[in-house]
């Protein structure tokens, strides 16, 4: 087999390339049987492969606090601009982030059998405080497709008023995936 110039591996004294020995690790040929360089290289590569498998299977974990530190930093990044006014009788007012609304509405959609909510964009409506516009993308299973959209609309409407306290002015649903069964 011709030596592949692009691999630029090390050439053994016999002229063979280490990558060639690697590629043929589980076979052998006449040259290799007689060549001490190739035999030595092969033995070393077998050790390397075995240790690589051990390393690949290793599941050393970071310290238990790492996830918590990451998520604290993530939560601190919610932006002020994404707040939606809630109806409130008390001075000072109340607001909820668009992300929190989206989480509640996605959860509601997920409760419909065979439905998985994906993207969910929320927009407050400028001249209509306490009302929102929702654009949601979902995946639905074949088995549950019939009637799913109506059920989802009902659940989302109910969640908007009952779970949050805002009025659903408009809902755009897009089914971008269907799955078995």
């Amino acid at each position, binding site marked *: 087999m011709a030596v592949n110039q692009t691999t630029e591996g090390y050439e053994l004294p016999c002229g063979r390339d280490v990558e060639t020995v690697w590629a043929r690790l589980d076979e052998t040929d006449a040259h290799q049987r007689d060549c001490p360089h190739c035999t030595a290289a092969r033995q070393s590569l077998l050790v390397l492969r075995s240790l690589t498998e051990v390393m690949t299977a290793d599941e050393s974990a970071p310290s238990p606090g790492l996830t918590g530190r990451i998520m604290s930093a993530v939560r601190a990044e919610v932006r002020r601009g994404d707040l939606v006014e809630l*109806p409130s009788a008390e001075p000072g007012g109340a607001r909820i982030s668009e992300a929190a609304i989206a989480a509640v509405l996605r959860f509601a959609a997920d409760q419909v059998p065979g439905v998985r909510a994906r993207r969910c964009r929320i927009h407050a409506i400028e001249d209509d405080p306490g009302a929102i516009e929702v654009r949601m993308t979902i995946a639905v299973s074949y088995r549950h497709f019939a009637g799913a959209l109506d059920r989802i609309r009902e659940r989302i409407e109910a969640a908007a008023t009952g779970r949050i306290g805002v009025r659903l002015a408009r809902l755009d649903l897009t089914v971008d995936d269907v799955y078995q069964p």
Partner: protein
Amino acid sequence: MTVELTSDVPGCEAHVASQVIAAIAVRAATGTSGVIRLEPGLVGLVGSLVRTARGQLTRVDPAPTDGVRVTGDQNGLRIEVDLVTSGQDQVAAVAGRVQRAVARSVHDATGLPVAEVTVSVLDVELSR
């Protein structure tokens, strides 16, 4: 910031630091039904975020008043609270409860008028 408390005793002045007002607000808010926790998202990063020698971001003084900011003066306090609510209660209802509880607790403890309490819900925890 400190706020002067009214006092009936001549020659006696009292002040309360805003961190104390914040701590009272924190206690009232976290004790409100439907509130999971306060969340230092937008306000109340007491101390600043600094980089340690290893380049990690860490809060210099992680005081319990994270999630609350107190402004205003003795004519009226303005308190902002950031929190996470439970999915079991209607968010707007919980927010109203927090506004009332914070205003009442701070007024009862300090005698100061609370002009407004603004609640921002940053997350809703759906598993609880």
